[in-house]
């Protein structure tokens, strides 16, 4: 099962004829993801790895009923692509694109919220329910089916930590990247809500980083809701300076806000253990699970 995507999820790829879209479509198909159609304006009628291409999402919807869309279109037109998916009634949209203007992301999230659609990202590696469905660009060999949910602001740290989990026989129910931008759709709290009711998830690993106060709000949420499943956190950026963007647009300490120290303190104050290093996540998780 896992959350958001599973074995029977049907997907469309927006921007399927671009270099990245084309390549990642191939990898997703190989993983077993059911990609029913692709969309690129002006390219209707073509085929990419056997998948039919349509000029618009609406046209694709006359033949298929996809549950999700994954977007690879360039930053300048990502808002248009997302709005097209949202107004066509698709309820889960993963935006891989990096570099989308913040104003566009804000509009995207407003529109999605208005109609009850869920955006994952932007600037995310996507989401994977190991062994069932991959909607993203992650190297899938590091993931294995199991019972640990992973939600993360960082792509490579997700791979790093998932590989460690897999090596130590802790498979994953679903791993979802929420994206490295200051404005993202799905957040930690919403992911935790979904993992809470997922029967396959026994524990959650949460990977945060400097910038914003999402981790602090999440710690609050865990405490106030007496979150029923064990949560282990890792926060990157303890040594990061203030006012400097550390790779991700959203990874920036402003004044005193958004430091790793305050985030770790927030989690520990509500009983969520924070690993000091990525490799320590598994040890901490195992010790928590034993209890």
């Amino acid at each position, binding site marked *: 099962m896992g959350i958001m995507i599973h074995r029977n999820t049907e997907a469309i790829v927006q921007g399927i004829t671009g270099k990245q879209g084309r390549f990642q479509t191939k990898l997703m198909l190989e993983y077993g993801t059911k990609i029913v159609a692709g969309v690129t304006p002006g390219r209707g009628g073509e085929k990419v790895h056997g998948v039919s291409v349509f000029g618009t999402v609406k046209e694709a919807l006359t033949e298929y009923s996809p549950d999700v869309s994954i977007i690879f279109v360039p*930053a*300048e037109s990502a808002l248009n692509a997302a709005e097209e998916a949202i107004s066509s009634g698709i309820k889960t949209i993963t935006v891989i694109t990096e570099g*989308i*203007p*913040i*104003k*566009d*992301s*804000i*509009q995207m*999230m*407003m529109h999605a919220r208005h109609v009850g659609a869920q955006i994952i990202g932007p600037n995310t590696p996507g989401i994977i329910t190991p062994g069932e469905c991959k909607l993203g*660009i*992650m*190297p899938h060999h590091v993931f294995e089916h199991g019972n640990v949910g992973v939600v*993360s*602001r*960082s*792509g*490579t*740290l*997700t*791979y*790093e930590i998932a*590989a460690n989990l897999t090596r130590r026989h802790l498979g994953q129910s679903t791993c979802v990247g929420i994206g*490295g931008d*200051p*404005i993202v*759709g799905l957040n930690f709290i919403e992911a935790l809500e979904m993992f809470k009711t997922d029967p396959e998830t026994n524990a959650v690993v949460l*990977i945060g*980083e*400097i*910038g*914003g*106060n*999402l981790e602090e*709000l999440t710690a609050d949420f865990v405490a106030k809701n007496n979150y029923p499943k064990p949560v282990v956190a890792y926060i*990157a*950026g*303890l*040594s*990061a*300076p203030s006012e*400097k*963007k*550390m*790779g*991700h*647009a*959203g*990874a920036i300490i*402003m*004044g*005193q*806000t958004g430091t*790793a120290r305050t985030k770790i303190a927030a989690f520990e104050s509500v009983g969520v253990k924070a690993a*000091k*290093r*990525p*490799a320590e996540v598994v040890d901490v998780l195992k010790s928590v699970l034993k209890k």
Partner: protein
Amino acid sequence: MKLFEYEAKDTLKRRGIPTPRGEIATTVKQAVEIAEKLKPPFVLKSQILAGGRGKAGGIRFALNSEEVERAAGELFRSQIKGFKVEKVLVEERIHVKRELYFAVALERSERSYVAVASSKGGIDIEKATAEMPTAIFKTLIDPISGLSFSTAKEVAAEIGLVGKQQTDLAWIMKSLCQIGLDLDAILIEANPLVETPDGSFFALDSRLIIDDNALFRHSDLAKLRFEKDREYTETEIEAMKNGIAYVKLDGEIGIIGNGAGLVMATLDMVHDSGREPANFLDLGGGATSGRIALAVKMLLADPTVEAILVNILGGLTRCDDAARAITDAIDDFRQTKPIFARLVGTNEAEGKQILLQAGLQVFGSMEEAAKQAVEAIKRENC
């Protein structure tokens, strides 16, 4: 991208927001000439892209041309908060009755813009948006319609203004918000926004930060981004132009990795082992050999870097390609430093072999690689 105060004020002025009369000077002579066209008393403000300039001595007052000459001379000779002063804004000094605050910033947790107003000037926006102290009024802003005039009037009323003053301030706040949205600003701030004894308002200081990702639709601003003496060093600019995210730091261990989170974690591990990273360097996804080689050369050329720690998690980036790019860069540069590498993922065995043959140290975990890099420096410095 941060704009200088004078650039922000020029933008505000063009859109009808009252700002003090003044001009920008790059020499003492120019500062005096500008002052002669203005009404005394004067204020001279060093233009640097850092806050807290007043306390650091970057703002001077002057009553006449002689004092302007002296103050400008001192400012142009000084370093304020680590920045050499290249430009000084010379303005008429405004009589202040009270200081207010207004800004439009990001409220990340609400996935929105937020307008922040206060009857107290000089507050810290980062604190103001994170917490919710009293005397601060916050309202979320629609990215298309902006701040409505009626909401702006309500905010002005909360601050305690009535009649024409309420209308005037509401108009200023609404306009500032619109300028911010038009320019894709992630922060537009009038701080302080002052009330004068005759009841009018001026933006006495202003900060404007533009979303880097939106510069493609602001070509005039995009041109300024990589100007000399602005936000970035030459090395940072070269890195950015080649798709590398690079930030210079104070330590001695150079870091190269792929993925922002992974690189941050690597920095933390160096820090945890008792030394400091010399930089943050993220190659990004699917880095080409050229990009990897450039990164290696950048760190070989950096005199503060004593050892290099490479952390590659191969996915799209193949480990053997990365290894070859690293050894090529070393050959090309004809000079090397101790390099400690951790490579995992696609074509890992081939990559490790190439590095070992070139005499580099290769490790299976990033903890081990970081620890060994730190140990090597400690030995070196004994």
